[in-house]
């Protein structure tokens, strides 16, 4: 199993969700997060004073998938979340030891 974590622009969430559900992914967890990368935030004005927005709002999607489909899912997320401009986000993939479905007690691939 692989655990895929994607940090994307908030307004791209629907596109990514549609792409994944269309490809048969049946579950995901989404969190509103803030952070910065190479872009290092940006500056705004409020009542004549400049201020730096260090931590920009992003969406974090977490999904767990069998090893066999991980590459395809990463491809789908990348394609759906890309705008081509700065701040599009990142995708991280990590191996996962175990998954357990609380209601039924199933384990492994059948639990996700």
């Amino acid at each position, binding site marked *: 199993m692989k655990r895929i974590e994607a940090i994307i622009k908030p307004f791209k969430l629907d596109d990514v969700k549609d792409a994944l559900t269309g490809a048969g992914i049946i579950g995901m967890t989404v969190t509103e997060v803030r952070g910065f990368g190479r872009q290092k935030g940006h500056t*705004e*004005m*409020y*009542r*004549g*004073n*400049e*201020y730096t927005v260090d931590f920009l709002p992003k969406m974090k999607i977490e999904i767990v998938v069998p090893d066999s489909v991980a590459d395809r899912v990463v491809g789908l997320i990348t394609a759906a979340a890309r705008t081509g401009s700065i701040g599009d986000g990142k995708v991280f993939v990590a191996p996962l030891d175990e998954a357990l479905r609380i209601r039924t007690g199933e384990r492994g691939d059948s639990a996700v």
Partner: protein
Amino acid sequence: MTEATRRTLHWRIIAALVVACLLAVGGWVFAQDKPAAPAAAQAAAPAPPPSKPDPGGTATGGVADVTAKTAGKPTLEEVADFSGHNRVSINLMWTLITGFLVMFMQAGFALVETGFTRAKNVAHTMMMNFMVYAIGMTGYWICGFALHMGGLGAISTMGGTGLLDSEFAISLFGKDFGLFGMKGFFLAGSTYDVAVFALFLFQMVFMDTAATIPTGAMAERWKFSSFVVFGFFISMFTYPLFANWVWGGGWLSQLGKNFGLGHGHVDFAGSSVVHMVGGVTALAGAMVLGPRIGKYNKDGSPNPIPGHNIPMGVLGCFILAFGWFGFNPGSTLAGSDLRIAVIAVNTMLASASGAIFAMFYMWKRYGKPDPSMMVNGMLAGLVAITAPCAFVSSFWAFVIGAISGVLVCWAAVFIETVMKVDDPVGAIAVHGVNGAWGVLSLGLFSDGTYGDGFNGVEGTVRGLFYGGASQFVAQVIGTTTCFVFIFAASWGFFKVYDLVFGVRVSPEVELEGLDVPEMGVHGYPEVQGPATLVHAMGLSTPKAPAMSMTPERAR
């Protein structure tokens, strides 16, 4: 049949039954009406009140409605009596209704001030705006009104009753300088009178507008207990004294009669009396309080602390702009004075140009049209036109608003970056600076079409550009007096109170947010978690631990 379709069918049947009932009842009512009309026409001959319907409205009201000994045949004296009573009725009604509109401005202030401050202080900021209405009214009833209006003399638009006839004055240079009134304490005794009560209502909501202005500049760090004492202080002493000098027959209003300076200090609806008093009090209070933690860096440069709810601020601004149709046109104290049309149009024009010029100024200077500054711009236009609204043409009204729109943006930044006074909502720039600009603009642009006999001086009110240089001098004296007296009295009050009891919350309370430590409840509990969680962190001790909520119950 599924559950969903059954429910749809159910609602359709109910809707059909309701429509059928309406049609049946309506049809019956109209059917009843038909035979009634010819019957009334037949019986029309001598019986006076005709009972036939008047859908056009032209026949309702007539000679039979004039109170007379012989019904339908009033004498000339009876007609004159009746028309005088009508005139006063219209004026009294107008004064009351516009007063009700001004009362609603409290809601506007509450929304603007709360929207432009942070979520952790909403309950505290809201309740200052709420309680100032109740506290201010009480203080004004006890002695504020008496000091303010006790020596007014005859209320000419409301029957001319001269019940408020006692002014304390000192004699200087052979002239009387009225300082405060001495009649109308608790509205008791001989001031138990309809005209006096109408005047009280109208003047009380004006005083409350001034009293609620400092709560914005002093928000997010002011101790609630200190605010309560302040509410009595401004409504019982500072506001009534200055208002007496301008509106109660006091010495500033007599500058014209005594020293030939135009019509004396003229302030039609309160740019100085209401707004500048509020703004200058706010300045003194914010200076004694000091800036919010985190507002200024070590090198003195300011950090912006954005408000938490822009829609709330904008809605508040619209409510204020609506209430201003009571504030300015109501200040005629007369619905029979048709100048109210000019006043109302001037008021709205200045609000428009204020917002437009604030928008363009911020856009050009800082890159984007700042929402909170556009709101401040509209309010600044309204504040500035409040004094001259009755005396200027629509062109000058637009210009006065336009200048105030730029002035408020410049002043807000100046107060923050140069004077280092932290005013979260821009109250000092909006009400203090533009209040001063408003009364001065009256001394420049008044065109001499209105105000004959104002403050007991013959002739209309003319500004500097219309041949009235001495009027401008009177305006300068009034503005200076307002600043010096109100700043000194308010600064003294806040400073002494601070030394004895303290006006500011502790840094721990300020950082946590004033809602729970000061008021015992979060304004937005679902966002910030139940109050008991904060108590559990040891920042304050819960009085009743049995009330602690699980997360489910909190929701």
